[in-house]
Protein backbone atom coordinates (compact mmCIF):
# COMPACT_ATOMS: atom_id res chain seq x y z
CA UNK A 1 0.00 0.00 0.00
CA UNK A 2 1.13 3.55 -0.64
CA UNK A 3 2.40 5.17 2.48
CA UNK A 4 -0.04 8.03 1.95
CA UNK A 5 -2.95 5.62 1.96
CA UNK A 6 -1.76 4.04 5.17
CA UNK A 7 -1.35 7.41 6.79
CA UNK A 8 -4.74 8.59 5.59
CA UNK A 9 -6.16 5.55 7.34
CA UNK A 10 -4.11 6.45 10.40
CA UNK A 11 -5.56 9.94 10.53
CA UNK A 12 -9.03 8.74 9.53
CA UNK A 13 -9.17 6.14 12.27
CA UNK A 14 -7.98 8.69 14.80
CA UNK A 15 -10.65 11.18 13.82
CA UNK A 16 -13.41 8.62 13.83
CA UNK A 17 -12.17 7.31 17.15
CA UNK A 18 -12.32 10.75 18.74
CA UNK A 19 -16.07 10.80 18.37
CA UNK A 20 -16.69 7.22 19.33
CA UNK A 21 -14.34 7.12 22.29
CA UNK A 22 -16.00 10.26 23.53
CA UNK A 23 -19.36 8.48 23.50
CA UNK A 24 -17.83 5.44 25.15
CA UNK A 25 -16.33 7.43 27.97
CA UNK A 26 -19.35 9.69 28.38
CA UNK A 27 -21.45 6.58 28.85
CA UNK A 28 -19.19 5.74 31.76
CA UNK A 29 -19.49 9.17 33.24
CA UNK A 30 -23.22 9.78 32.80
CA UNK A 31 -23.92 6.68 34.73
CA UNK A 32 -21.41 7.35 37.42
CA UNK A 33 -18.11 5.75 36.95
CA UNK A 34 -18.26 2.88 39.40
CA UNK A 35 -21.82 2.04 38.61
CA UNK A 36 -21.09 1.86 34.97
CA UNK A 37 -18.61 -0.85 35.63
CA UNK A 38 -21.01 -3.09 37.44
CA UNK A 39 -21.47 -6.43 35.85
CA UNK A 40 -25.10 -6.04 34.94
CA UNK A 41 -24.64 -2.66 33.43
CA UNK A 42 -21.69 -3.73 31.39
CA UNK A 43 -23.48 -6.78 30.20
CA UNK A 44 -26.54 -4.75 29.34
CA UNK A 45 -24.35 -2.45 27.30
CA UNK A 46 -22.92 -5.32 25.37
CA UNK A 47 -26.34 -6.68 24.66
CA UNK A 48 -27.57 -3.41 23.29
CA UNK A 49 -26.76 -3.98 19.63
CA UNK A 50 -25.99 -0.39 18.56
CA UNK A 51 -23.60 -0.05 21.48
CA UNK A 52 -21.96 -3.34 20.66
CA UNK A 53 -21.48 -2.21 17.09
CA UNK A 54 -19.88 0.95 18.39
CA UNK A 55 -17.54 -1.00 20.60
CA UNK A 56 -16.57 -3.16 17.65
CA UNK A 57 -15.91 -0.07 15.60
CA UNK A 58 -13.74 1.46 18.31
CA UNK A 59 -11.88 -1.79 18.57
CA UNK A 60 -11.09 -1.89 14.88
CA UNK A 61 -10.28 1.80 14.60
CA UNK A 62 -7.95 1.95 17.56
CA UNK A 63 -6.26 -1.34 16.79
CA UNK A 64 -5.54 -0.12 13.28
CA UNK A 65 -4.44 3.30 14.51
CA UNK A 66 -2.46 2.04 17.45
CA UNK A 67 -0.56 -0.70 15.68
CA UNK A 68 0.15 1.47 12.72
CA UNK A 69 1.51 4.01 15.17
CA UNK A 70 3.71 1.31 16.63
CA UNK A 71 4.84 0.30 13.14
CA UNK A 72 5.83 3.89 12.41
CA UNK A 73 7.90 4.14 15.55
CA UNK A 74 9.62 0.84 14.93
CA UNK A 75 10.37 1.71 11.32
CA UNK A 76 12.07 4.86 12.43
CA UNK A 77 14.10 3.15 15.09
CA UNK A 78 15.98 0.73 12.90
CA UNK A 79 16.25 0.06 9.20
CA UNK A 80 16.89 -2.92 7.00
CA UNK A 81 14.80 -4.88 4.53
CA UNK A 82 14.14 -7.89 6.72
CA UNK A 83 13.57 -5.88 9.84
CA UNK A 84 11.14 -3.58 8.09
CA UNK A 85 9.19 -6.49 6.62
CA UNK A 86 9.05 -8.13 10.02
CA UNK A 87 7.78 -4.92 11.62
CA UNK A 88 5.09 -4.40 9.01
CA UNK A 89 3.79 -7.94 9.08
CA UNK A 90 4.23 -8.23 12.82
CA UNK A 91 2.13 -5.16 13.45
CA UNK A 92 -0.46 -6.33 10.98
CA UNK A 93 -0.64 -9.71 12.70
CA UNK A 94 -0.89 -8.15 16.14
CA UNK A 95 -3.60 -5.84 14.89
CA UNK A 96 -5.62 -8.73 13.48
CA UNK A 97 -5.01 -10.77 16.59
CA UNK A 98 -6.24 -8.05 18.88
CA UNK A 99 -9.27 -7.38 16.74
CA UNK A 100 -10.10 -11.07 16.70
CA UNK A 101 -9.68 -11.40 20.44
CA UNK A 102 -11.75 -8.31 21.22
CA UNK A 103 -14.42 -9.27 18.72
CA UNK A 104 -14.77 -12.59 20.42
CA UNK A 105 -15.66 -10.82 23.66
CA UNK A 106 -18.11 -8.51 22.00
CA UNK A 107 -19.84 -11.10 19.84
CA UNK A 108 -20.07 -13.72 22.50
CA UNK A 109 -21.37 -11.29 25.10
CA UNK A 110 -23.78 -9.79 22.70
CA UNK A 111 -25.19 -13.16 21.73
CA UNK A 112 -25.58 -14.02 25.38
CA UNK A 113 -22.95 -16.72 25.42
CA UNK A 114 -21.76 -15.96 28.94
Amino acid sequence: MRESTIMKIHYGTALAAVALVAVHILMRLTMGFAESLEYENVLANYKFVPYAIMLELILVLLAVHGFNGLRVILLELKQGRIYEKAVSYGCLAAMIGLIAYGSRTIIMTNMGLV
Partner: protein
Amino acid sequence: MTHDEHKEGIGGMANPTRYGIERVAYWLMRLSGLGLLAYFVAHIYETSNILRGQVGWNEFLELTQTTEGHIFLALVIAMCVFHTVNGVRVMLGHGGVGVGKPARPDYPYDPASQNYRHKIGIYSAILLAAIATMYGLAVMFGE
Protein backbone atom coordinates in the same frame (compact mmCIF):
# COMPACT_ATOMS: atom_id res chain seq x y z
CA MET B 1 26.03 1.02 12.45
CA THR B 2 24.73 3.87 14.55
CA HIS B 3 28.26 4.75 15.44
CA ASP B 4 29.50 4.75 11.87
CA GLU B 5 26.79 7.06 10.78
CA HIS B 6 27.14 9.12 13.92
CA LYS B 7 23.40 9.08 14.36
CA GLU B 8 22.26 10.59 17.58
CA GLY B 9 20.16 7.54 18.36
CA ILE B 10 17.16 7.20 20.61
CA GLY B 11 18.68 9.53 23.16
CA GLY B 12 18.81 12.30 20.56
CA MET B 13 15.38 11.53 19.26
CA ALA B 14 14.06 11.60 22.78
CA ASN B 15 15.94 14.52 24.27
CA PRO B 16 13.26 17.17 24.58
CA THR B 17 15.38 19.82 26.23
CA ARG B 18 17.43 21.34 23.44
CA TYR B 19 14.69 22.59 21.24
CA GLY B 20 11.36 24.28 21.79
CA ILE B 21 8.05 23.12 23.19
CA GLU B 22 7.26 21.59 19.78
CA ARG B 23 9.91 19.00 20.45
CA VAL B 24 8.43 18.26 23.87
CA ALA B 25 5.05 17.78 22.23
CA TYR B 26 6.60 15.41 19.71
CA TRP B 27 8.03 13.37 22.51
CA LEU B 28 4.87 13.32 24.64
CA MET B 29 2.86 12.35 21.58
CA ARG B 30 5.01 9.28 21.04
CA LEU B 31 5.00 8.29 24.70
CA SER B 32 1.28 8.75 25.05
CA GLY B 33 0.63 6.85 21.82
CA LEU B 34 2.64 3.90 23.05
CA GLY B 35 1.16 4.14 26.53
CA LEU B 36 -2.33 4.18 25.13
CA LEU B 37 -1.60 1.24 22.90
CA ALA B 38 -0.39 -0.71 25.91
CA TYR B 39 -3.47 0.29 27.86
CA PHE B 40 -5.70 -0.54 24.92
CA VAL B 41 -4.32 -4.07 24.66
CA ALA B 42 -4.69 -4.49 28.41
CA HIS B 43 -8.17 -3.07 28.29
CA ILE B 44 -9.27 -5.56 25.65
CA TYR B 45 -7.89 -8.29 27.80
CA GLU B 46 -9.55 -6.83 30.87
CA THR B 47 -12.96 -6.66 29.28
CA SER B 48 -12.63 -10.19 27.99
CA ASN B 49 -13.04 -11.25 31.60
CA ILE B 50 -16.70 -10.65 31.23
CA LEU B 51 -16.81 -13.96 29.45
CA ARG B 52 -15.92 -15.54 32.79
CA GLY B 53 -19.23 -14.49 34.24
CA GLN B 54 -20.07 -12.18 37.13
CA VAL B 55 -17.50 -13.69 39.46
CA GLY B 56 -14.67 -13.45 37.00
CA TRP B 57 -15.56 -9.87 36.07
CA ASN B 58 -15.73 -8.75 39.65
CA GLU B 59 -12.53 -10.49 40.55
CA PHE B 60 -10.77 -8.63 37.82
CA LEU B 61 -12.48 -5.38 38.56
CA GLU B 62 -11.23 -5.54 42.11
CA LEU B 63 -7.71 -5.73 40.86
CA THR B 64 -8.13 -2.34 39.21
CA GLN B 65 -10.13 -0.71 41.94
CA THR B 66 -7.05 0.00 44.01
CA THR B 67 -5.20 3.21 44.56
CA GLU B 68 -2.49 2.14 42.12
CA GLY B 69 -5.15 1.17 39.65
CA HIS B 70 -6.76 4.57 39.95
CA ILE B 71 -3.51 6.37 39.52
CA PHE B 72 -2.77 4.24 36.51
CA LEU B 73 -6.16 5.07 35.09
CA ALA B 74 -5.57 8.74 35.75
CA LEU B 75 -2.39 8.48 33.75
CA VAL B 76 -4.32 6.89 30.94
CA ILE B 77 -6.76 9.75 31.03
CA ALA B 78 -3.87 12.20 30.84
CA MET B 79 -2.32 10.39 27.93
CA CYS B 80 -5.60 10.03 26.18
CA VAL B 81 -6.54 13.68 26.44
CA PHE B 82 -3.11 14.92 25.52
CA HIS B 83 -2.82 12.50 22.63
CA THR B 84 -6.24 13.37 21.33
CA VAL B 85 -5.97 17.13 21.56
CA ASN B 86 -2.41 17.21 20.35
CA GLY B 87 -3.36 14.67 17.68
CA VAL B 88 -5.94 17.04 16.31
CA ARG B 89 -3.37 19.82 16.33
CA VAL B 90 -0.79 17.68 14.60
CA MET B 91 -3.30 16.55 12.03
CA LEU B 92 -4.22 20.12 11.22
CA GLY B 93 -0.54 21.00 11.02
CA HIS B 94 0.15 18.05 8.77
CA GLY B 95 -2.55 19.31 6.47
CA GLY B 96 -0.82 22.66 6.31
CA VAL B 97 -3.25 24.45 8.61
CA GLY B 98 -1.93 27.15 10.87
CA VAL B 99 1.68 26.70 9.87
CA GLY B 100 2.04 30.21 8.54
CA LYS B 101 2.47 31.57 5.04
CA PRO B 102 5.60 31.57 2.90
CA ALA B 103 7.20 34.98 2.94
CA ARG B 104 10.54 36.63 2.40
CA PRO B 105 12.51 35.81 5.55
CA ASP B 106 14.11 38.78 7.26
CA TYR B 107 17.04 38.44 9.62
CA PRO B 108 16.84 37.57 12.48
CA TYR B 109 14.82 34.65 11.23
CA ASP B 110 11.72 33.56 12.99
CA PRO B 111 10.23 30.47 11.38
CA ALA B 112 6.54 31.06 10.79
CA SER B 113 5.65 27.41 11.28
CA GLN B 114 6.77 27.58 14.88
CA ASN B 115 4.05 30.05 15.71
CA TYR B 116 1.85 30.89 18.65
CA ARG B 117 -1.16 29.01 17.23
CA HIS B 118 0.58 25.70 17.50
CA LYS B 119 2.20 26.61 20.78
CA ILE B 120 -1.24 27.41 22.17
CA GLY B 121 -2.43 24.08 20.82
CA ILE B 122 0.34 22.27 22.66
CA TYR B 123 -0.14 24.12 25.91
CA SER B 124 -3.87 23.59 25.79
CA ALA B 125 -3.35 19.87 25.18
CA ILE B 126 -1.20 19.75 28.29
CA LEU B 127 -3.63 21.85 30.27
CA LEU B 128 -6.68 19.86 29.22
CA ALA B 129 -4.87 16.65 30.02
CA ALA B 130 -4.14 17.98 33.50
CA ILE B 131 -7.73 19.11 34.08
CA ALA B 132 -9.13 15.81 32.84
CA THR B 133 -6.76 13.88 35.04
CA MET B 134 -7.76 15.88 38.06
CA TYR B 135 -11.40 15.39 37.25
CA GLY B 136 -10.78 11.68 36.77
CA LEU B 137 -9.00 11.42 40.09
CA ALA B 138 -11.81 13.28 41.78
CA VAL B 139 -14.36 10.91 40.32
CA MET B 140 -12.40 7.79 41.17
CA PHE B 141 -11.31 8.74 44.64
CA GLY B 142 -14.38 10.73 45.38
CA GLU B 143 -16.59 7.75 45.94
